[in-house]
């Protein structure tokens, strides 16, 4: 009776207290996620201040001595500092430039395939490398590039030890990244293309457009907003190189190009227990990222209606 009355009469807004009380079970569901997020995400943010202190476990965070920018100073005057910043940026930038167009081109091709069973096989196989551990992928890279009995050297008839060549590192990193993730990157584009109105293709066919023209005039415009969004997002995390892969592919001899900030943060912080110093270097990395994200987002929202943060 109450319900029918509420439905016919214009909805009266309940008081805030009442609405909160009505939803107590939903707040209860959120309790554990909120607590976990506070403990493991927000408290570490508070802990960032050890970047400005000389952190000693016995004295705690606030009890440790304030040293200002000393750790940053030490990082910027470290002999490998310039090299690490340069390597980090170049590795991400080249990965983005080479890696970004591949899923777009692939999904344009896959979408126009007219043999459903073959199309499915292509998709299944292309997704496969995404499901393999980076550890295993790096193991494969090392086997294939081995100077004795490695697939690449066998095919080329050479005995080059690629893992010790710093000039080869970026190519190895980027090519293997495309191999592993380009197929998976197609999903979002294929999903977008599957929403294209079929009547557009029909109309294009009636007008005598070839398949290539249909791709160019129907599919590409449909993909463009998603592609731009993706590009912006990646540009905003330029300083986040794939740490795990660099760590596993780094050798003493390829360090000239493989030395990146993230690996340094790990080595200093966890291996050498230089907590404050490592936090400072990590904070520098995060700060650059945030600035990039902000700049890119501002440009994007000025030039288009896309606003993603």
């Amino acid at each position: 009776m109450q319900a029918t009355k509420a439905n016919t009469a214009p909805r009266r807004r309940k008081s805030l207290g009442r609405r909160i009380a009505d939803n107590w079970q939903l707040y209860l569901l959120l309790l554990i996620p909120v607590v976990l997020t506070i403990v493991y995400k927000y408290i570490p943010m508070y802990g960032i201040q050890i970047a400005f202190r000389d952190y000693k476990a016995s004295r705690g965070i606030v009890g440790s001595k304030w040293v200002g920018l000393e750790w940053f100073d030490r990082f910027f005057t470290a002999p490998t500092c310039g090299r690490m910043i340069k390597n980090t940026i170049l590795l991400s930038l080249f990965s983005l430039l080479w890696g970004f167009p591949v899923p777009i081109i692939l999904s344009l091709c896959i979408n126009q395939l007219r043999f459903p069973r073959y199309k499915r096989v292509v998709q299944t196989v292309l997704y496969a490398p995404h499901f393999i551990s980076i550890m295993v992928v790096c193991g494969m890279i090392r086997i294939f590039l081995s100077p004795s009995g490695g697939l690449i050297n066998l095919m080329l008839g050479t005995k080059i030890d690629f893992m010790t060549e710093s000039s080869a590192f970026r190519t190895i990193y980027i090519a293997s990244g495309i191999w592993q993730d380009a197929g998976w990157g197609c999903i979002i584009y294929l999903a977008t293309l599957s929403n294209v109105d079929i009547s557009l293709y029909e109309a294009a066919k009636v007008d005598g457009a070839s398949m290539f023209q249909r791709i160019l005039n129907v599919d590409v415009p449909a993909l463009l907003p998603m592609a731009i969004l993706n590009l912006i997002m990646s540009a905003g995390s330029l300083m986040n190189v794939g740490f795990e892969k660099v760590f596993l592919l780094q050798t003493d001899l390829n360090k000239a190009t493989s030395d990146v900030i993230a690996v340094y943060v790990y080595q200093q912080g966890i291996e050498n227990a230089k907590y404050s110093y490592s936090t400072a270097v990590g904070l520098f990395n995060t700060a650059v990222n945030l600035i990039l994200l902000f700049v890119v987002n501002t440009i994007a929202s000025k030039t288009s209606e896309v606003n993603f943060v």
Partner: protein
Amino acid sequence: MAKNKTSNGLSERTSDIILVVITAIVLFIVAYPLYYVLIASFSNPYDVYAGKTFLLPSGFTLEGFKAVFADANIPTGYLNSIKYTVIGTVFSVTMLYITAYPLAQKELPGRKALSMFFIITMYFGGGLVPTYLIVKQTGLINNMWALFLPGGVGVGNMIIVRNYFQNSIPHELIEASEIDGCSKLRTFLRIVIPLSMPIMAVMVVFSMVAYWNDWFTALIYLTGAEKAPLPLVLRNVLIRSSVSAAQASTISGGYAELNKITEMIKFSSIIVAAAPMLIIYPFVQKYFEKGFMAGAVKG
């Protein structure tokens, strides 16, 4: 008549052939390395070494697989990985669901602020060391839960699930259920969860893959060798090329042989580590695109 001919003279048939050729080349590039590892893992290692197994296996041996499991750490690592994957997946998917469902309710007071509270952690975090120190302080060093708790809520996936709830589950159904006297919790358990199986399948697979393949979290937090998951155990052979004494003893022949045998152990280790996930994902593949689409569009 002119149906198959188009303005620039390229027939539909020719275009089809071009696309098939392009995709076939890509298919080959992606599949060949995996195929090569597979045939090399049970071929005669000397033939692999001599480059005789480019297309077809040569000889047949399971020595590599035998050697892989001769190192006691590997069966242990395998069991650890299974344990972490199962517990981690149940935990993570539960977290995703209990976070996403309340945040999908448009009338929930404070919804915007709560969403923001989670989303901020996607863009800004404490970083490696401050997080490590908290994990240490909460007593999770060398404890399996260090793999699950700090990750907490996977915010990116949570948003996909939240959007799925908003877009793909008819709101009338939830209202009807509540009018019938179901509590919000009961509605969630009895109506929403059963209706969300496609997105749950996707999230379960994502989560399984993440835990099965994770080694870095374990490297930082699990200090005891007996707790290492499979990929971390395999680091010794795959990255450092070091073979345990137990593995070396399965090989007849001197030290000189060891190099080739090590390669065989590597091939076998890769198959052992990669096979489970490669077998599982095709079963839920059809949900990937649907799930992404329902989750990516804002409601």
